[in-house]
C-alpha cells in the first residue's frame, strides 16, 4: 500500500466537548453526621469517634460517619444474635420474602437519590450508578426475595438451614450493590447480618439502613456499622459470628482466612485479580475492542475482574492498538455527576497514589505509555492508560 498509515488520524475533540448535563445534587439528602445502625436504631458509637467521608471528585467533605470500635461491634453482634434466636429464625420463609421485596421496591423508589449519593461519595460516573449500580442492587433484592420460600424445595432430600449471624465486609468499588449482594441472600436464607461498608464509601449503605428501618424489618436482623480496618478485624475475630463474607483485596482475604482458621466460622471470600483479554485474528475486532474498553474502564477500572491484561495475536496487533487508541480518544473524562462522563474520579487519594506508583513502575520497566489527548480534571482523577509492550 502506497499510503503511509501513520499520517492518517481521526480527530475526536468535538465528541468530548458537549454542553454540561449535570445531575442535580439537591435531589439527594445527606445528613451532617451518621451514627451506627444497631438493633433497628441509629445509635451513637461507644467509641465516641467519627471520621469524614469526602467527595473524591472535589475533595469536599460530604458528611461524617461513626467509627465503630470492638465494643460497638460486640453490641451489633449481640443485637444480631438476639434477633436471630428470637425472631428471624422463626419467621416463615414467605414472611421473610415480604420484607425483602419491600426493601427492593424502596430501593427502586429512591433510585435517583441513591445514584446521586453513590456518585458523590465514590466518584463513579452517574451514568453507571444510575444505569447499573442502583437498578442491579434492587434486582438482587427482588431475586433473593423470590428464593426465600423455595429453598425448602430446591435441594431434594436436604433441608437448607440458616447459619446464624453473618459478618459481612464490603469494598468501595460498588458500595450499594455489594451491600445488596451480601444482605439479600443472607436474609432470604434466614440469617441475620452485621455489615461494614468500606470507610471511603459508607453513605449508600447508611441510606440502605434508613430504608431497612422504614421497611420495618425486625430490629437487629440487619445491623450496619461503619469504620476502617480495625472495625473489620473486630467483626472477623468476634466469637459469636458464624459466617464471614468478604469482598475486597487478596491481601486482606488472606488475613481473614488465617484469622478464622481453626474456628467454626464459614467464609466466602471474593477477591481481586488481574484478568486477561485474549484477541485472535479471526475475532470481530471492533466488538473485541469495545469489550476491552468496558473491561478496563468500567468504574475507572475499580472492578475485581477488570481486564487489565491484553494479549493480541501478532497479525492484528497494530490494528487492535489503533482501534483502542481511537476508542480511548472518545471517552469523556470529567465531573462524575455529568450524565456524559465515561470516566469519573478515582475513589480516593490513596488509590490514586497506588495507581500512579504502578504507572511509574511500568514506565521504569521500559513500556511505552499511551494516554488519551483529553484534558484531565485537576482533582483526583485519571484518563486511563494503555501500556504497550517493550
Amino acid at each position: 500500500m502506497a499510503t503511509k498509515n501513520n499520517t492518517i488520524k481521526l480527530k475526536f475533540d468535538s465528541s468530548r466537548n458537549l454542553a454540561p448535563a449535570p445531575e442535580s445534587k439537591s435531589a439527594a439528602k445527606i445528613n451532617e453526621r451518621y451514627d451506627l445502625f444497631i438493633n433497628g436504631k441509629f445509635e451513637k458509637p461507644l467509641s465516641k469517634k467519627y471520621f469524614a467521608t469526602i467527595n473524591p471528585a472535589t475533595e469536599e467533605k460530604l458528611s461524617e460517619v461513626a467509627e465503630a470500635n470492638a465494643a460497638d461491634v460486640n453490641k451489633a453482634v449481640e443485637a444480631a444474635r438476639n434477633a436471630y434466636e428470637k425472631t428471624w429464625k422463626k419467621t416463615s420463609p414467605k414472611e421473610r420474602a415480604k420484607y425483602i421485596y419491600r426493601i427492593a421496591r424502596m430501593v427502586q423508589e429512591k433510585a435517583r437519590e441513591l445514584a446521586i449519593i453513590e456518585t458523590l461519595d465514590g466518584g463513579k460516573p452517574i451514568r453507571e450508578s444510575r444505569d447499573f449500580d442502583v437498578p442491579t442492587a434492587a434486582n438482587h433484592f427482588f431475586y433473593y426475595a423470590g428464593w426465600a420460600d423455595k429453598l425448602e424445595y430446591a435441594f431434594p432430600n436436604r433441608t437448607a438451614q440458616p447459619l446464624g449471624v453473618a459478618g459481612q465486609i464490603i469494598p468501595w468499588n460498588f458500595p450499594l450493590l455489594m451491600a445488596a449482594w451480601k444482605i439479600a441472600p443472607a436474609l432470604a436464607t434466614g440469617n441475620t447480618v452485621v455489615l461494614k461498608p468500606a470507610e471511603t464509601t459508607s453513605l449508600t449503605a447508611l441510606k440502605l439502613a434508613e430504608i431497612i428501618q422504614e421497611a420495618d424489618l425486625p430490629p437487629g436482623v440487619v445491623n450496619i456499622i461503619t469504620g476502617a480496618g480495625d472495625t473489620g478485624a473486630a467483626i472477623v475475630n468476634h466469637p459469636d459470628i458464624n459466617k464471614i463474607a468478604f469482598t475486597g483485596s487478596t491481601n486482606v482475604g488472606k488475613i481473614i482466612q488465617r484469622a478464622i482458621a481453626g474456628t467454626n466460622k464459614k467464609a466466602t471470600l471474593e477477591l481481586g485479580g488481574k484478568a486477561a483479554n485474549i484477541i485472535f485474528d479471526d475475532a470481530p475486532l471492533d466488538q473485541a475492542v469495545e469489550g476491552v474498553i468496558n473491561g478496563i474502564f468500567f468504574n475507572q477500572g475499580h472492578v475485581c475482574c477488570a481486564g487489565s491484561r491484553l494479549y493480541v495475536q501478532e497479525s492484528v496487533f497494530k490494528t487492535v492498538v489503533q482501534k483502542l487508541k481511537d476508542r480511548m480518544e472518545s471517552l469523556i473524562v470529567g465531573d462524575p455527576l455529568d450524565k456524559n462522563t465515561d470516566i469519573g474520579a478515582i475513589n480516593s487519594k490513596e488509590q490514586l497514589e497506588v495507581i500512579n506508583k504502578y504507572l511509574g513502575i511500568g514506565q521504569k520497566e521500559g513500556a511505552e505509555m499511551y494516554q488519551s489527548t483529553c484534558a484531565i480534571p485537576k482533582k483526583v482523577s485519571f484518563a486511563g492508560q494503555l501500556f504497550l509492550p517493550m
Partner: protein
Amino acid sequence: MVATKTIPDFSLSPHIDQVGVEERASRFTKRSIKNETKINGLKLALNMIDLTTLEGKDTDGKVKQLCYKAQHLHDAYPGLPTVAAICVYPSMVKVAKKALGDSGVKVASVSTAFPSGQAPRDVKIRDTKFAVSEGADEIDMVISRGKFHMGEYNFVFDEIAAVKEACGNARLKVILETGELGTYDKVRRASDIAMYAGADFIKTSTGKMSPAATMPVTLVMLEAIRDFYYKTGKRIAMKPAGGISKSKLALHYLVMLNEVLGEEWMNNHWFRFGASSLANDILMQLMKQKTGVYQSADYFSLD
C-alpha cells in the same frame, strides 16, 4: 488518493458480533445532548438532510413545492440552513434542478431500477446516464441483493464500478438495502464491496421497506468506512435512510458519527440523513428551544 488498489477477498471481510455491536450502538443513546450542543446538532442535522420524495404519485408541483421547502425550511426562524439535497426519481431531476437554481441545494436522483434493482445492467446504466444528463449532482443506486446472496460478489462489484463510470462527475451513493441483507456480517461485506468498487457514499436503505436504517447497522457501516480510510486514505461518506423521523434519534446518530469517525465527517459532504418527516420534527424542536414552548404541527409545512 490511492495509487494502486488491491481488491481484497470479500468473503474475508471481518465478522461482526451481533450482541457487541448492538450494545455499543445503544451506548450512544446514553449521551445527554443539551443547550448549545443540542441547537448546533439540530441545525447540523437539518443541513444534512436529503429531503426525499419517491412516490409513484410525484408530480412536477409536488417536486417544486419540496424544492421551495428545501430553501425555506421555516421562515419564522431566521438564519436556518438549507437541507443538503433533494432526492427524487430521474424523471423529476430536471424540474428539481430548475426549481433549486443556484441555491446550493444538490439534486440527488435514485437510479438503477430503484428500489428493487431487478433490471439488466444496460437499463441501469441508461437510467443513470439519463439522470446525470438531466443535471443530477448525485446518484443513489441500489445493489443487486439477489446476486449478493448468491455469492456473486464480482457481479455486484462490477455493476457498482460500471454505474460509477456512468456517473461522470456526479457523486455515487450505493444503497445496500440492509433490511434485505439479513446479518451484520453481510452488511459489512456489502459495505466493503461498495467502497472498493468506487462508491462515494454508502447508504443503508431505499426507505421502501422495513427495517430501514438502524443504529447498529449504521455503526457497522461507519466502522467499515473507518477501516477503509485507514487502509487506503480515502474518505467515504455515509447516509442512513428511512426510519429516522425524530430529532432525538438524529442527534444520537450524530453522536455516533462523531465518536466513530470524528469531527472531519461532521458535515453534509460526508454524512446525510435520507428522510422526509425528520425536517419538521427538528424545526419543532428548534422553535421549542427558541421560544420555550412547543408549537402545534399546524404551524409547520405539511411535507
